[in-house]
């Protein structure tokens, strides 16, 4: 089946006074229907830029340099404005960073969602819209009587749920969630992550989940894409990427994350700072900070290649499969090394 | 201060600010020409702005070769008056604005930092200042005592300093006061005086400077208004020039005697506008949100 969303060598730059910022460079990925893609990377790596590109919400100083974004096989950058508007609610909905602040404080929450439905589906009557809001609230776990309350009467977690309900209002085929739980406390975050996962499975929706938090990504994604300095460095099944990270950046990033599971492991440090995308390093953008860098890395940009089936990576010197760590630190029924090697050759 | 060259780069992008700056510079050159002209080309007996008199003409005389902008009803050269006044307008505007801003900054930051009674007291003073009819008050004061140039500039500055600017600068100081670096300074053992002097004032200063530009405009307009009413004891200023024309009755036929009021009127307008425009340009430096990205 055709993928729902496909990015094909997508490259987008921002014009600033100082020059062109190479925010997204040659990103190729695809998302199947019902699949959840976790996009992970540090601040400024271009993950939000990708979300904005997919929504066609780029600021005026941006420029698509090359590549395409196909939604249901159609290039969104050749769509008319009307088609894009339709796509934004019925095709792809987005939950923004700090979305709880995106509710209008002077309208009742229910009214805001009804408004969104009626605007985008003129054929829907207001009663039908209210009925749908009722079922949406049920879906995201807000008591129905809360529909008639104002945003300031909601707690942070409940606002976030209301925003999710709003994003789901027009039955989108896919949702882009940009750090939707970053501002929330862990217990609330946990509840929302579980609910989003349930809803997604229930209505077979695709999702791109953007986060800097490796552990959140691990919990919500089927497929994980790792970005560094505007480039996709690794892409694969979540299990694969987490247990057998091949790109040195992914490897270090995952080892840099403290976990409360299992025994303590030495936390990895990545020396230096992320590069300035006005003038990114030559060759591989990670090479100045990479402990596996060779002479080649500073010269040639590594190819995007399928390192094993379904697992893509851009690196001249990928980490060997023996370099696992999650299995080692996990207690209890953790898979042993031999088993991991076995599954990797089978998958 | 921080990144002067960077701030200059932002300011330079503001067309309105640059235009204002150029006009101010032109006025500066114009004013600087006065001592040169009176000491070289112009005969002080004829061209002195206050006591000069040209016996060769009937006054007021329209522009001639000798008097490029004509003469006023008592025979003094308009261009010389205009030039002579420029420097004094600068002095008046900048001096009173400086006083205003210094007072406003100190009171604003102190009120914001200490809060409580200090805050309430100065805010009520500011309210009274804002509600008080400024110009009529000065008209009355001016008719009772001789208001000369410097006392006038100081009164204007002091009155302004306790007024609305305090409220604005206090708001800014309040937003600085809650920053973590203020806490950091307190943990380091910094006294209140140290925190106000080293952290709050420097962070309020850009806004103070911005309001100083607007205050220059305000001071010059006040001076012009009061001079026009003839309540100031100032020998010559742009406002005085219009007052002279008005007192002699020439403003009733203003189309015919345009040179009596147009040059000084234009100078006041342009000069005030220029400072205002620089203020607008600075606004973009001070408030990053206004910047076009």
């Amino acid at each position: 089946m055709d993928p729902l969303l496909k990015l094909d060598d997508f490259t987008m730059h921002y014009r600033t006074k100082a020059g062109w910022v190479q925010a997204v460079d040659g990103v190729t990925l695809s998302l199947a229907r019902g699949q959840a893609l976790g996009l992970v990377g540090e601040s400024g790596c271009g993950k939000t830029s990708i979300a904005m590109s997919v929504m066609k919400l780029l600021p005026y100083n941006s420029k698509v340099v090359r590549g395409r974004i196909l939604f249901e096989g159609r290039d969104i950058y050749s769509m008319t404005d009307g088609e894009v508007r339709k796509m934004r609610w019925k095709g792809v909905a987005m939950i923004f960073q700090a979305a709880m602040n995106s509710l209008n404080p002077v309208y009742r929450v229910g009214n805001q969602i009804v408004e969104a439905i009626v605007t985008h589906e003129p054929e829907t009557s207001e009663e039908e819209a209210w009925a749908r809001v009722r079922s949406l609230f049920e879906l995201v776990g807000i008591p129905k009587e809360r529909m008639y309350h104002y945003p300031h009467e909601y707690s942070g977690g409940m606002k976030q749920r209301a925003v999710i309900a709003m994003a789901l209002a027009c039955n989108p085929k896919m949702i882009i969630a940009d750090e939707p739980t970053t501002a929330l406390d862990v217990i609330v975050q946990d509840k929302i992550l579980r609910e989003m996962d349930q809803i997604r499975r229930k209505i077979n929706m695709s999702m791109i989940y953007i986060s800097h938090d490796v552990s959140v990504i691990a919990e919500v994604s089927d497929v994980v894409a790792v970005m560094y300095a505007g480039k996709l460095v690794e892409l694969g099944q979540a299990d694969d990427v987490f247990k057998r990270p091949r790109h040195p950046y992914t490897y270090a990033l995952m080892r840099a994350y403290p976990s409360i599971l299992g025994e303590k492991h030495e936390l990895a440090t990545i020396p230096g700072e992320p590069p300035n995308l006005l003038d990114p390093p030559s060759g591989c953008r990670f090479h100045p900070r990479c402990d596996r860098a060779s002479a080649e890395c500073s010269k040639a940009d590594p190819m995007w290649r399928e390192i094993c089936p379904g697992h893509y990576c851009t690196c001249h010197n990928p980490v060997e499969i023996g370099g696992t760590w999650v299995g080692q630190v996990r207690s209890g029924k953790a898979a042993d090394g031999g088993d991991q090697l076995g599954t990797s050759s089978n998958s | 201060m921080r990144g002067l060259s960077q701030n200059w780069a932002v300011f330079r992008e503001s067309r309105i600010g640059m235009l204002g700056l150029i006009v101010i510079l032109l006025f500066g050159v114009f004013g600087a020409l006065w001592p040169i002209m009176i000491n070289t080309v112009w005969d002080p007996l004829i061209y002195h702005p206050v006591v000069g008199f040209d016996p060769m003409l009937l006054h007021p005389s329209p522009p001639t070769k000798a008097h490029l902008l004509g003469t006023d009803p008592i025979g003094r050269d308009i261009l010389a008056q205009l030039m002579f006044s420029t420097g004094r307008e600068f002095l008046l505007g900048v001096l009173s604005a400086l006083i205003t801003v210094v007072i406003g900054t100190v009171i604003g930051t102190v009120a914001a930092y200490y809060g409580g009674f200090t805050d309430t007291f100065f805010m009520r003073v500011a309210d009274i200042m804002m509600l008080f009819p400024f110009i009529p008050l000065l008209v009355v004061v001016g008719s009772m005592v001789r208001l000369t140039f410097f006392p006038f500039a100081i009164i204007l500055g002091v009155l302004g300093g306790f007024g609305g600017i305090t409220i604005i600068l206090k708001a800014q100081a309040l937003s600085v006061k809650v920053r973590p670096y203020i806490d950091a300074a307190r943990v380091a053992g910094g006294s209140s005086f140290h925190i106000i002097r080293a952290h709050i004032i420097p962070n309020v200063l850009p806004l103070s400077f911005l309001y100083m530009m607007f205050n220059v405009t305000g001071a010059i307009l006040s001076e012009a208004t009061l001079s026009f009413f003839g309540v100031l004891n100032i020998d010559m200023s742009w406002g005085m020039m219009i007052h002279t024309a008005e007192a002699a009755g020439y403003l009733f036929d203003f189309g015919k005697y345009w040179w009596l009021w147009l040059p000084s009127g234009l100078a006041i307008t342009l000069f005030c506008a220029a400072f205002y425009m620089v203020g607008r340009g600075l606004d973009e430096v001070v408030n990053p949100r206004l910047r076009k990205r």
Partner: protein
Amino acid sequence: MALPATADAADAILRVEHLCKYYPVSRGLFQRRQLLLHAVDNVSFEVKRGEVLGLVGESGCGKTTTGRLIARLTFPTTGRIFVDNADVSKIQGADMAEFRKKIQMIFQDPYESLDPRMTIFDIVAEPLNVNGMGNLEEREQRVAEMLSLVGISPPSAFLFRFPHELSGGQRQRVAIARALVMNPTFVVADEPTSMLDVSIRTGIMKLLAQLREDLGISYLYITHDLAVARYLCDRIAVMYLGKIVEVAEAEEIIKEPLHPYTRALISAVPVPDPAVKRPVPTIKGGVSKPINPPRRCRFYERCPVAKSTCAEQDHPAPREVSGGHFAACHQL
């Protein structure tokens, strides 16, 4: 009341006894009853010399207020703080300056905690400056020394730069240098890594651990992130609505949490392993604000193990359940 104390009280660099901070809450013009937000409510703990105590909790639990009370940025409603066995509230005059030198603080936001109008030198030298320590030359030397200690090198390249020219990680290092420039014995670190990227964060965490080794500094490490606390702290105290509900050795609290709130908190932390399915945290409802809280266990409404007797008694006092492991729960 049993204090979560060590055997030897003299060993403690910081001891906090029955600390309370209530904030009045205004609720309209006609509300007669005085409403008080119990931000920190009867909190007692101590930090041993050279120890890192983690103070963990969700937003609004009072952990930052506790830190600010200790750093004397705000003053307690009741309760006492002892530093080196001296009651802080009784310190006056010149001794206050000495006290200030002993306790320093690192703040959460490296973009806001450095004055944008000061150079790095001025920022790091500020504590020396306000305390009149050293002449300019000595200060410059000390600042350079501190900067290289926190990994800003070469210091000379940074001394006269402004904060906005530095990255987030570098700024936080500068903030740490400022906190350490007067040789404090105790540092309150209020979420110093929560705004930093992962790759930078580890560096700062390792730096803090290294400084503790080298300089013997004790920390109160305030964080919402249990995983970070686990890696950096010797002991962890969990706060909920102004109360400390559990204190224990870091590994013990992570592996064998006793209090139902700690259990819920730990099971809610996402883990970086797609194969692990965490149990659903057994906790009801959401966090409320402790405004004039009823006299019973603060966790009662949300508690999965609460019994009717919990509603009848006051909030439980921390009890030593096993060696050094304290929990405040009636049901243990």
